[in-house]
């Protein structure tokens, strides 16, 4: 049985990690140098048995960060207290040093969008996000890191640019930043702007860890699919980020069309090399 008291809470994510998913639990379990994984919070039960792979990782003192995808912190309505309670319970039972969620909304008017949707970059939206983050922070046992999303569509009436919008939210909530390098690439590519200009203006000292994922071009857009290889441009952006200020940890997200283990290992190695972290494979 998993002995909660025997495992000390980790100080924070470090080095190269990978998103734990049931489909690749066996692969993840065999990574000798792994110190950090992330798990989709809604997929972890608040009570009852944990997925066995996760229990084993905790026994190895691997840091497990619950990553919420359904809180809808950017929704105009108050965040659902039951969803916050679940995230808090999962953080507690995994002895997580922090949790993470998105600056996005996933439902409105009684309809589920099914995925993360962007907010207008307006004062009103900043107020809505900050109020919801404060509601969550009041119940969470650990700090929260907020992740800016990749958006294919922009609202017509943005008042703030992305850097000001994000910085305002982080300043007002005191939250950490989960910077998704692939999202930075995707947004810059789809809006026709320079990704380095955004990196230069974000509070990189607030980054708790960074995400890296694969994607693909189709229909004239770059799609952050998490089911394709990590493009060279994203790895180069990892290098550019680390040259400015290296985040404490980098996490590879893969959510489907899982490649052979050797390919996934090569992606983890490439990520470690781009950031100057030790290989975990």
């Amino acid at each position, binding site marked *: 049985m998993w002995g909660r008291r025997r495992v000390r809470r980790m100080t924070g994510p470090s080095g190269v990690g990978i998103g734990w998913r049931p489909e690749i639990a066996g692969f993840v379990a065999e990574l000798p140098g792994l110190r950090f994984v992330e798990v989709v919070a809604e997929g972890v039960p608040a009570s009852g048995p944990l997925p066995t792979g996760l229990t084993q990782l905790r026994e190895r003192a691997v840091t497990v960060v619950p990553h919420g995808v359904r809180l809808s912190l950017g929704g105009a309505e108050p965040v659902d207290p039951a969803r916050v309670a679940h995230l808090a319970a999962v953080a507690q039972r995994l002895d997580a040093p922090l949790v993470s969620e998105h600056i996005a*909304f996933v*439902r409105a008017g009684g*309809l589920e*969008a099914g995925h993360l949707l962007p907010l207008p970059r307006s004062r009103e*939206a900043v*107020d809505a996000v900050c109020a919801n983050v404060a509601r969550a922070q009041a119940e969470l046992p650990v700090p929260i890191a907020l992740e800016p999303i990749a958006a294919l*569509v*922009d609202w017509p009436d943005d008042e703030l640019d992305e850097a000001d919008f994000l910085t305002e939210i982080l300043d*007002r909530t005191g939250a950490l930043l989960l910077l998704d390098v692939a999202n930075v690439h995707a947004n810059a590519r789809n809006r026709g702007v320079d990704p380095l200009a955004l990196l230069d203006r974000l509070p990189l000292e607030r980054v708790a860890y960074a995400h890296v994922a694969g994607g693909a071009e189709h229909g004239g857009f770059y799609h952050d699919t998490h089911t394709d290889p990590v493009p060279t441009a994203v790895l180069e952006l990892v290098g550019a980020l680390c040259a400015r200020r290296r985040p404490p940890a980098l996490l590879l997200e893969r959510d*489907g069309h899982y490649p052979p283990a050797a390919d996934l290992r090569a992606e983890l190695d490439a990520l470690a090399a781009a950031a100057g972290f030790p290989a975990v494979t």
Partner: protein
Amino acid sequence: MTGEPDGDSTPTPRAGLAERQAELVAALVAGGPPPPGFAPGPLAATRAALLRKRAGEVARHWPLLAAGLGARWSTTFAEWAARRPTAGSLRDGWDLARALHAQHALPPAAAEELAVREARLRYDGLRAPRPRRAPAVGRAGGAVAVQIAGRVRLLRPAPRVSTLAGDAVADAAGS
């Protein structure tokens, strides 16, 4: 930690943002009109991306449905789901499987998957499926499954009318 809003004293109703978020979601998942000012191309790309994501999640809950349809899975799901907001992956797949069954278009492996689910759970098409207490028989496309005391067995497989390549081995199961 500066100027942290107080969750209790913050006025919660933000009609402007709430209404506009609802309009955007309705346009993306329920066939609603495009909200004013949004560029149509990015809106269409977002709609398609949401459908792909949703198809992947339904495929994880209904692997034989997705695998049975093989290369047709993505378009079959997208056509069915385009104007239907999600009711969750379990119910989405169930509703689609029943719709295909009604059109005699459910592949054999998917019929077996549906029969097993029908025997295990009671689903009225409106609310979350619930475990059946009494013994039950599930039927779909010639497949028959029986559930007694919570244990489900496929009594009769669905007939294979022809040897459709890829029926059980297609790689579209989303895993």
